[in-house]
């Protein structure tokens, strides 16, 4: 069984946020109002986190795109009282909206703040409704949601390769963010396949994982020449 993972090269990322918008259009993510945004209720399954270091005239501004890191030991699933969030056999952390009771334990447990609570029912202008993606549900008020690695694309890819009678290849299944990344800073594929592009990239001395010390074993691996590198050895 493949183990899906993502590699994000921070040395190539320009912080343009194309991934953010691609994700929102793909996954029917409602936009916030200014008032909701002020309260920190904007939902963004992948978020660009700015990291400002140093002072004028030598400031260093970096961006860190943060999807759900799809941990192998996800802290969020351990606190879910209703099995609404769980780790599936392919290593993806699933989120089942119809089970979720909205207790928000998981949003608190996630050290990467990758989980979002729907404080209100999703709002769209009537005119926007036709462009909602039929492959992804509209989440109701009161449930927690997060990045799924565009899991619906995996379902479709599996279906396609099965119909064509062949094995699933890395390029068959690509999340929306990876597909659109202008700088080509994101890679996606099977971490268990020694020949895949992602596995090759994780061997780089630039590779590291976010908050490695927590033991969450994320499947999103970052690359950088900055001082964070070197934390990931596999």
């Amino acid at each position, binding site marked *: 069984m493949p183990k899906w993972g993502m590699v994000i090269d921070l040395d190539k990322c320009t912080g343009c946020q194309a991934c953010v918008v691609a994700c929102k259009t793909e996954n029917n993510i409602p936009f916030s109002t200014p008032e909701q945004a002020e309260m920190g209720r904007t939902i963004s399954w992948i978020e660009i986190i700015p990291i400002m270091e140093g002072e004028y005239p030598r400031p260093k501004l970096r961006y860190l795109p943060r999807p759900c890191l799809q941990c192998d030991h996800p802290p969020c699933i351990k606190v879910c009282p209703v099995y609404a969030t769980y780790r599936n056999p392919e290593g993806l952390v699933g989120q089942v909206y*119809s089970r979720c009771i909205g207790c928000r334990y998981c949003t608190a447990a996630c050290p990467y703040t990758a989980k979002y609570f729907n404080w209100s029912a999703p709002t769209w202008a009537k005119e926007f409704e036709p462009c909602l993606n039929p492959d992804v549900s509209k989440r109701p008020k009161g449930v927690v949601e997060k990045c799924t690695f565009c899991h619906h694309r995996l*379902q479709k890819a599996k279906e396609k390769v099965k*119909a064509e009678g062949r094995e699933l290849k890395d390029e068959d299944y690509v999340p929306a963010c990876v597909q659109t990344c202008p700088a080509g800073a994101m890679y996606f594929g099977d971490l268990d396949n020694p020949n895949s592009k992602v596995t090759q990239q994780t061997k780089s001395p630039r590779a590291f994982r976010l908050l490695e010390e927590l033991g969450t074993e994320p499947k999103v691996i970052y690359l950088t020449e900055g001082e964070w590198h070197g934390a990931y050895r596999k």
Partner: protein
Amino acid sequence: MQANKFRIIGLVLVAGLLAFTWLRIGLSKSTEIRQPIRFNHKKHVQGGLECSGCHQTVKDQATAGRPETSLCMTCHEASVTKNPEENLIREYAQRHEEIPWQRVIKLPDHVFFSHRRHVSTEKLDCTSCHEAIGQSSEPPSRPIKFSMDSCLACHQKMKASVDCVACHK
């Protein structure tokens, strides 16, 4: 005193009955399905049509597909039967309108189901889920509901995936 008591009980009963009827009518109105044409599945199947003859995307897309008016017209351009309903097809075609077929199968928004997956790759027969629709001569007047149990029963039997996110989107 006594008379008053009966009167009150009577009133409550009448009000309750009224409310019940009103609710019944209301509810049935909201769930009843009236197809624009009283389509007869049985006739078409007996005539030798495959399901995929009309539901044309059943083998290669998620949804089975609704026949477009033009497709109906390939056979019904001229009268095939004496049924007055048949004229309706030609009326729609003349107005260049699609026939507003109503959906009878209701899946919740959080469920992903692909016909292609079940029909093309797993070679399931349509009747495995749609049972007797092919033998019905009247369109169903109420939505047909599926329960997760029936999905799971089959998935377990066939050793298909029972992972939540395999079906929940």
